[in-house]
């Protein structure tokens, strides 16, 4: 019990509370601007976290990501342009509501069910994580190898592109992680004689490049969003209680889908929203109303993308395997702040864990008043010209990357990964898989090599332990799944044509 009190006193400090408030406003604004994603917001935040205490640092990440995922709904609803990819699934639906003159209902539903979804996701995290930690304590390198490999495979399964391209992207990420001397032999690998590459390629410059610079590159060749139309908004939370009473099943289903997809490595809020919207339509009593301004799908997917955020922290905290691109960045910050992910985090740093739960809850409660405020001023924020925001972000990419290690080479990496991310996105290669490969490469290799040395080169022990055999089956199933789907489609052409 004293750990809970400790946690409260940690969160109640002036620094943490100010950090939460500022990062909440920051997340709201970045999320609302089209083209600036939640992941980008977090990547640009990392240099700032260096100077904060551990709890404050993680609190800024939790708060700003939650706010950004919600506020991405605002331009989606008002202008039919999703602020973040996580809102894309139901942008048409909420814009249809706006066209019917019910913008406040759509925005209110986004806000209300985002906050409830975030809280539900946090509760799931609080229940799931300690239970899984118990299990994780008995894991050996064999299990960790399969788990990280499975994570990579999941990222390729859920990508909305060709699974082969997704696997190729993940392999590319693993190859990037090979660079440096941190390998079983301690020899310089793929460093091409550059001393800057000896330490390997840090995930952070790569992330900033892939998520921020490539976005600026896209802005260069795409037209800016049209100006926002004038509109008076009525009461925002007015109709929400009625919606909650009317669609409780949808809300809970959305929450559960969100947590599960969030916990899957590599799949985050955007995927959760797509799946929840599709599920909602599939099981709805009135599927014909979907797309015409019907709040049902909004309830389910709005809840799902915010609960996915908390779900993403489950594998991140337990195994150091990112549940989504946001936690991929967060893991780096956790290590830097001495909160090394792993099952022992729950026993040795219990008060810090409780503090994180409190931050999660606080962020989602704070979301409601701040969200209302944001919706009210959204017209002014959305008027901020892209031609001012993007250059500033480019400058922040440079300064932020430099700040990580006071090394200008990091800026070169940011530029290179910007080009890589841009080219990959253009040609249908999912960048999330690349990022996961970079973040998890060392872990996959270490566990693979250690396991092979333990088994003296024998592959059989990889399948012998009960948990590892289950994980191995799942991984191989995930690897073969696209082939099975393809075969099924061939066998049932009528189904595919539908």
């Amino acid at each position, binding site marked *: 019990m004293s750990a809970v009190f400790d946690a409260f006193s940690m969160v109640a400090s002036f620094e943490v509370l100010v950090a939460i408030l500022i990062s909440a406003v920051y997340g709201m604004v970045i999320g609302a601007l089209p083209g600036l994603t939640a992941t980008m917001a977090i990547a640009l935040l990392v240099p700032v976290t260096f*100077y904060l205490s551990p709890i404050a640092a993680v609190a800024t990440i939790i708060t700003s990501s939650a706010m950004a995922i919600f506020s991405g709904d605002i331009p989606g609803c008002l202008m039919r342009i999703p602020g973040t990819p996580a809102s894309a699934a139901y942008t048409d639906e909420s814009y249809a509501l706006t066209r019917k003159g019910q913008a406040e209902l759509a925005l209110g539903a986004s806000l209300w069910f985002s906050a409830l979804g975030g809280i539900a996701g946090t509760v799931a995290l609080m229940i799931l994580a300690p239970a899984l930690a118990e299990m994780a304590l008995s894991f050996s390198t064999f299990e960790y190898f399969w788990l990280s490999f499975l994570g990579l495979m999941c990222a390729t399964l859920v990508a909305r592109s060709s699974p082969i391209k997704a696997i190729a992207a993940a392999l590319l990420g693993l190859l990037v992680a090979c660079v440096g001397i941190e390998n079983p032999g301690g020899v310089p690998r793929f460093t091409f004689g550059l001393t800057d590459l000896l330490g390997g390629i840090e995930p952070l410059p790569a992330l900033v490049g892939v998520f921020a610079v490539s976005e600026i590159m896209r802005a260069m060749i795409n037209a800016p969003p049209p100006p926002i139309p004038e509109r008076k908004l009525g009461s925002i939370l007015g109709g929400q209680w009625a919606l909650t009473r009317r669609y409780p099943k949808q809300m809970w289903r959305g929450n559960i889908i969100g947590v599960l997809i969030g916990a899957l490595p590599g799949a985050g809020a955007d995927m959760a929203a797509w799946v929840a919207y599709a599920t909602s339509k599939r099981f709805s009593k009135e599927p014909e109303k979907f797309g015409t301004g019907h709040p049902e799908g909004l309830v389910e997917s709005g809840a799902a993308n915010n609960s996915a955020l908390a779900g993403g922290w489950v594998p991140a905290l337990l195994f150091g395997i990112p549940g989504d691109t946001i936690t991929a960045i967060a893991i780096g910050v956790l290590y830097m702040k001495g909160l090394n992910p792993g099952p022992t985090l729950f026993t040795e740093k219990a008060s810090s864990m409780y503090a994180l739960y409190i931050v999660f809850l606080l962020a989602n409660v704070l979301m409601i008043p701040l969200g209302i405020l944001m919706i009210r001023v959204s017209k002014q924020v959305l008027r901020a010209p892209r031609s001012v925001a993007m250059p500033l972000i480019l400058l922040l990419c440079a300064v932020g990357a430099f700040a990580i290690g006071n090394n200008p080479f990091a800026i070169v990496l940011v530029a290179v990964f910007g080009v890589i991310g841009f080219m990959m996105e253009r*040609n249908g290669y999912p960048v999330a898989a690349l990022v996961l490969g970079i973040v998890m490469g060392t872990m996959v290799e270490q566990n693979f090599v250690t396991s092979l040395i333990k088994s003296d080169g024998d592959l059989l022990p990889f399948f012998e332990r009960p948990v590892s055999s289950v994980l191995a089956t799942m991984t191989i199933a995930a690897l073969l799944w696209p082939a099975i789907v393809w075969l099924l489609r061939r066998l049932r052409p009528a189904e595919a044509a539908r």
Partner: protein
Amino acid sequence: MHLSDRVTGLFLVLLGALAFWGGSRLPAVPGQDIGPASFPMMIGAGLVLCGGLIALGIGRSFEVEDPPEATAVPGLAGRLGRMGWLAAFLPPALLIFYVVAAESLGFLLTAAVVLLVCARALGASWRLTIALTLIGPFGVHLAFSELLRVPLPDGLLAAPW
């Protein structure tokens, strides 16, 4: 810039082959079968396989095509016309410029150049661009150098604080 699957697939085959070859030349750990070479060689082989499949067009049926964008783009891309895609490579070029110039020109001047070029290329008006160029570098310098203690280079023009 959109390339065909054949081009990107063959590029991956080449990269995979290079990774495999480069990996195989790494020194082994004495007395161990598994060393630093194993992992890159596995990845290289995987990339060759995936690249080959992509080049052959397998797995295309899973892809969701993005609708093409036809609206006119302001700024640099619009002026370049058919070569508009080149504008996309301006941001990374500006980053490289920053790396090269920051030490001698100093942060404030370099940042001003980056902001000026980028804002104009995105089609900002001169009034907006000049305001951004005058205020932006000082704001970023204040936040990073003063608050976060990042050692930004002074160069020709040091910050007044």
